[in-house]
């Protein structure tokens, strides 16, 4: 049992659920305290002590039956369904078939499930373990059954029943035998499917252990594979936590404002006006942000990670409004206010599919100035994320200038390598003189550093 639990925890970790040693220890104590009689209770105990995040529950639910069974009924023996006479008939029929019985039918008749060693031996012959999906699990189970002789089974069964009929077994008796064999076949298949799933999960655990440490932080966004991007998404949370504590510390240690006379007088009324408790004005360090993100194909990953970071840091930001553009501008704040960043990004990317060379930055800036300029006031930092490639449209520097005048700061983040700035249709050099600062953000590490700067004083 204990080994099972340890393996289960390892599988959870491999599937991306964060389980600490302390938590698995708790889990053991919990199981000890309650016992394992009731399967649902056991499940609830594991869930409560191991899974601390709602989004990990589906993973848990997927893996749990692989390690602790479906509660499938065991295989039945022919004796359970047949009378003694019928059994005798069956034995005779089998003798006649002797030598032609295959492994699978024999197992079905003897109600013999596969042992762990046998399963593993089959696994070794069957090539690499399947991937972690229910479909490939089913497929693998079928494959293993075929190895046991599923193909010949039907023919054999027909022959067997013919013999039985010839020997004079009643129609009803044969029906019972047929049902029993069907049940056993199902049970066996379930066992194999189960095993295949476990093998997949175990394989995944090993792969995870072999994977080298993530220096993905310094991998350029343009060279990310989907799998690496996925790994980075996990990283964003840790990064955000680090940035958050830095920002919070800065907030706390930041220079206090001047004496707040009004508040001091009010607070010290109870000390008969003796100023024991001085009150200071609080400096507002939490930035107000407006993000304008290019989400065309070339910068999509970068935009995604920037949005993720900012919304993970929500509690360190006074207010954030975000806009996305390709050929026109659209406000996406609502997506983020109503959904978890994870889902919001997916829905935004689906709503604004990328086209071919249709980015129009100038037009989008004009649109922003026309309709959304109220989002910018003197406390707002405006961040523009994009490569400044404008497809030779009008850059609309007038609009940019106007935004700069209204905003506290105008920050540009460019995921392109600097030697490409200003080449071809890139208008970035024209925008740069108006910016407070320009950052190259081609990797997550650079992006995090740029975001960190936003929270500085």
């Amino acid at each position, binding site marked *: 049992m204990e080994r099972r639990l340890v393996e289960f925890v390892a599988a959870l970790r491999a599937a991306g659920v964060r389980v*600490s040693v302390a*938590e698995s220890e708790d889990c053991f104590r919990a199981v000890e305290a*309650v016992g394992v009689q009731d399967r649902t209770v056991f499940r609830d105990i594991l869930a*409560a002590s191991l899974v*601390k995040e709602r989004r990990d529950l589906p993973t848990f639910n997927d893996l749990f039956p692989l390690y602790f069974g479906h509660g499938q009924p065991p295989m039945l023996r022919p004796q359970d369904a047949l009378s003694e006479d019928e059994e005798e008939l069956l034995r005779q029929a089998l003798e006649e078939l002797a030598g032609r019985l295959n492994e699978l039918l024999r197992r079905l008749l003897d109600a013999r499930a596969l042992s762990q060693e046998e399963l593993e031996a089959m696994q070794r012959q069957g090539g690499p373990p399947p991937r972690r999906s229910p479909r490939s699990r089913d497929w693998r189970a079928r494959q293993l059954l075929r190895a046991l002789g599923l193909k010949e089974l039907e023919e054999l069964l027909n022959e067997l029943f013919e013999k039985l009929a010839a020997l004079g077994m009643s129609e009803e008796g044969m029906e019972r035998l047929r049902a029993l064999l069907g049940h056993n076949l199902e049970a066996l298949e379930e066992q194999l499917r189960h095993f295949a799933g476990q093998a997949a999960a175990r394989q995944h655990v090993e792969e995870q252990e072999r994977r080298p440490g993530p220096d993905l932080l310094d991998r350029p966004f343009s060279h990310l594979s989907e799998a690496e991007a996925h790994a980075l998404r996990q990283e964003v949370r840790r990064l955000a936590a680090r940035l958050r504590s830095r920002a919070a510390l800065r907030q706390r240690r930041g220079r206090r404002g001047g004496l707040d006379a009004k508040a001091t007088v009010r607070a010290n009324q109870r000390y008969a006006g003796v100023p024991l408790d001085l009150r200071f004005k609080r400096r507002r360090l939490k930035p107000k942000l407006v993000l304008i993100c290019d989400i065309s194909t070339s910068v999509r990953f970068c935009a995604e990670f920037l949005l993720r970071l900012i919304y993970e840091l929500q509690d360190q930001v006074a207010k954030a409004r975000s806009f996305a553009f390709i050929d026109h501008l659209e406000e996406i704040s609502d997506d983020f206010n109503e959904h978890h960043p994870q889902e919001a990004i997916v829905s935004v990317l689906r709503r604004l599919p990328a086209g071919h060379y249709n980015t129009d930055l100038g037009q989008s800036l004009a649109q922003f100035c026309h309709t959304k300029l109220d989002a910018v006031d003197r406390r707002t930092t405006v961040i523009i994320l994009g490569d400044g490639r404008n497809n030779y449209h009008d850059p609309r520097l007038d609009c940019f200038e106007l935004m700069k005048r209204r905003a506290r700061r105008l920050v540009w983040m460019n995921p392109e390598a600097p030697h490409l700035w200003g080449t071809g249709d890139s208008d970035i050099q024209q925008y740069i003189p108006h910016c407070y600062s320009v950052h190259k953000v081609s990797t997550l590490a650079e992006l995090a550093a740029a975001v960190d700067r936003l929270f500085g004083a």
Partner: protein
Amino acid sequence: MFSSIQGVADALVGQQYIPSEEIATVLFLAERLGKPVLVEGPAGVGKTELAKVWSQATGRRLFRLQCYEGLDESKALYEWEYAKQMLYTQLLREKLHDLLAEATSLADAADRLAREEDVFFSERFLLQRPLLRAIQADVPSLLLIDEIDRSDAEFEAFLLEVLSDFQVSVPELGTLKAKVHPAVVLTSNNTRELSDALKRRCLYLYIDYPSIEQELRIVQLKVPELGPELARQAVELVQRLRQLDLRKQPSVSETLDWARSLVTLNAAAIDEATLRSTITVLLKHERDVLRARRLRLSDNGAGREEYGETPR
């Protein structure tokens, strides 16, 4: 305290709370292992209520700490009561005068005063806040830390120390240790990610909206005046509303409010007119109300909208 999981469930039902099996299991574990429970879930599914009911069912005294942005130790743990200290100094002036009268030098006087310092920094002048009160309680207690996600990250870190050892050090007094380990419930609406360190120390319980049967039981238990037929209709409608893409889904407490208002209005059936006049009890956003109005009442299948998705 509880002998079995079923015992927990029965005790909670005795306090008018319908727990799912999961809730009962987690509470049982929390009592057995003495671990804090972190409860998450949408607003209004009875997270805070669970803590209250737990304290009533076990006879624990409830201490509640409501978290908000900017909450710090002096609001959560303790504070010196300056005003009282001042007052005492004023009133004890005569006595102090006597004490210092015999002093021969300034240094001597200071020493004498220092010897009496303990009077002013004793528990007498310590203003206890919920955390300290829960730790200092003589009887079994339950500490409810409500909406922990609203507090700052630093406060969360500070809480870690308290939750793992149940002791607090006050520089002037030394370490104050819990006499009886309090049970702890933390609730969160998931407005921000909590730190892994905090999660690690807690058992986790996610309370979702109840199933139709559970919600019906809740309504019948809390608003018995509502007829069984009407109650079923009402609950079915609420469950259908939750299927819609709403800005704020109706919570269980809102279902109960609605059930009560149906009773007050003496509604015989839930028809268009009744729904129109009372829907605002359930839905608190104009957009949601408009959307829900389009939901066909007669349609007793799954929640279908007449005009499909509204463009946004």
